[in-house]
């Protein structure tokens, strides 16, 4: 059985600068992978290559559920299977919360308005903001907006969810409510790749933790492998820095 997500020899150049160096990664269905590493190490770049928000160099291959991620007809199908939650939420400010969640399933899956609405309300209840369905994004707090963004991604019933530092833009008191939602999702068996600076969270929910530096995967393993017994000096230094500060 092949992995749900497969990165083979993935490199990425921005002009002369190499942001990803020969990255290989398999993520199995149901796995929760947390990606940690210093700023500029290529964490965002790597997960943004998975739904082709960034075009990786053509020497590598990425597949999602066996379909190669590349420009063309299939890209829409890949993206429909890969949900993404951004640091800055990126909700659609001109649409109500409800419509934010309903839009993509109606446009892409072609489901009826009634079904889309029903499903959207279920999801909003699940993330704890069913009451706010008719409000607009600007009327919600950051934590609430991020939970809407998660519901919006879930509405497409994706096979995998990508999170790019979902709590970094939040006030500290709101971090918890968002992490709780992600944690609940993790326990329900959704495949996820989460880029995060929340080490405690990574330790709790991850099946596997990946440490990246300078565009490479330096080390990976179970949370206890990485956090309690890191093998690489770079990992040790990074953890020392983030845990002591």
């Amino acid at each position, binding site marked *: 059985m092949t992995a749900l997500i497969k990165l083979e020899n993935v490199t990425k150049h921005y002009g002369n600068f190499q942001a990803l160096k020969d990255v290989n990664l398999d993520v199995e269905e149901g796995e929760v992978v947390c990606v940690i590493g210093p700023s500029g190490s290529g964490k965002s770049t790597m997960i943004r290559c998975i*739904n082709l928000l960034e075009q990786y160099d053509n020497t590598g291959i990425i597949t999602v559920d066996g379909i190669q991620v590349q420009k063309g007809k299939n890209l829409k199908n890949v993206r*429909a299977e890969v949900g*993404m939650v951004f640091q800055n939420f990126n909700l659609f*400010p001109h649409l109500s919360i409800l419509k934010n969640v309903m839009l993509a399933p109606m*446009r892409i899956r072609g489901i009826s308005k009634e079904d889309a609405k029903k499903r959207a309300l279920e999801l909003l209840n699940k993330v704890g903001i069913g009451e706010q369905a008719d409000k*607009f994004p600007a009327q919600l707090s950051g934590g609430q907006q991020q939970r809407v963004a998660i519901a919006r991604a879930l509405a*497409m019933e994706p096979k995998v969810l990508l999170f790019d530092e979902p709590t970094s833009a939040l006030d500290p008191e709101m971090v918890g409510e968002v992490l709780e939602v992600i944690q609940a999702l993790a326990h329900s068996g959704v495949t996820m790749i989460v880029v995060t600076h929340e080490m405690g969270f990574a330790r709790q929910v991850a099946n596997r933790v990946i440490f990246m530096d300078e565009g490479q995967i330096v080390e990976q393993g179970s949370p206890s492998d990485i956090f309690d017994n890191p093998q690489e000096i770079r990992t040790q230094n990074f953890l020392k820095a983030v845990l002591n500060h």
Partner: protein
Amino acid sequence: MKYCRSFLSLILIAIPALFWSFSVHGQSSDPIKVGANIGNVPWEFQDTNGDYVGFEIELVNEIGKRLGREVDIMNVPFNGLFAATQSGRIDMAISSIAITETRLQSASFAQPYYDSDQSLTVRVGNGISSLEDLRGQIIAVDTGATGDMWATENQEKYGFSEIRRYEGLAPAMLDLTIGRIQGYISDIPAMQYYAKDKPGLQVAERIKTGGSYSIMMGKNTPLSTQVNDVISTLKQEGFINALHEKWFGAPAEATTSTVKVVDMPGVRDGLILNFVETFLNTQVFLDTYPMLIMGLMTTIQLGVLSIFSGLVLGLILALARLYASPAVKFVVKAYIDIFRSIPLLVLLIVIFYALPFVGLSLSPFYAAATALTVVSGAYTAEIFRAGIEAIPKGQFEASEALGLGYRHMMSDIILPQAIKIVIPPLTNNCINVIKDTALASVVAMPDLLKQATQAQAVAANPTPLIAAAVIYVIFLLPLVLWVSRLENKFKVGDR
């Protein structure tokens, strides 16, 4: 489209006139200010040295000499002569101006010195040799001139399909040569003089209108009787007939007003028109407002069509400029830069008068609509581009990550947000397009300004221009206010 020359020119004619009308009219020792539509051969035109010459130029110079006053001649377009005379901006107007009942209600004329008829000029060899051949054809006239009045009265009788109104001889002759119009009705002496050395043109028929020309002056001014007396003297001395012989090649018949001393045309009522009667004349307004309404309809049709097609064109250009291949981007950028820098008037003239030479002859309406669309599209494209670029990158990424295709991303996410940003500048652009429709009068399109100009020439009274200005304001002011409200609203809240 910051500027709008024709709309301005309306204001320029009307507003300063308000002030001049209050100023004291010329003292008898000041030079006599004479307005003349230079280029009206053989009456007043420029010779190769650039000096003003012609029948009427010599006449007014002689009149000045006899009155012991200098003569200061300035070039005023025919349609500007009426407001200029009544406002006191000029003391007298010459330009083979026909004496008519309507004009006498607003101005005084000296006794006539030339009896004229109208004439039909056609292109040689296109099968039209008389008025009867013109059924269902397009004819041309000079806006507000005697030929215009005659053609309007007789349109039904002869079945002209359309009367196009031009500002001066040259553009009308160009269109006659191209075949866009089939006949041109204008003063016979001017046409005979013009067609003399042009084998392709022919004065086909004399149209008896019994018009006679004279000098137009402010109503009941002392100058008008003085000039009338001088003309009597000059006729008795044979001076005027000598002018006739010089400019038309033969002396006038003894029975004509060129030779015979006749009465000064009666003044229709004894009052000098005051400000209100000159600029806000109810009777003139009632007589001319149907024309203005027709013009307004044309302006609205032209404006709406141009705005709509300009929006569509602009949106396509903006999307191409942002997302097409580099080659297409380059072409689109060049298009936008060129058409934002080219004056609309020039483009209009090129489209209307030059394209027929490559086989594309557009009607005035579509020529104007094309020019307005092409330019408005360039401006709209930049507005849309700015609007789209103002949308945060995250909105594009979120749409893409959800799997929305380009079309849905644009229609559901990007454009609805961009619209809010672009509505104020787009509305400003709409206002400019509507004002710019006034430029269409140069291609004989009967828009509001054109109709107003014609009406003021026929009535010899500037009221229709004021009325047109008021109509423009009534239509544009709500838009202007709406824009500033929107701008304020968007400034305050994010939503």
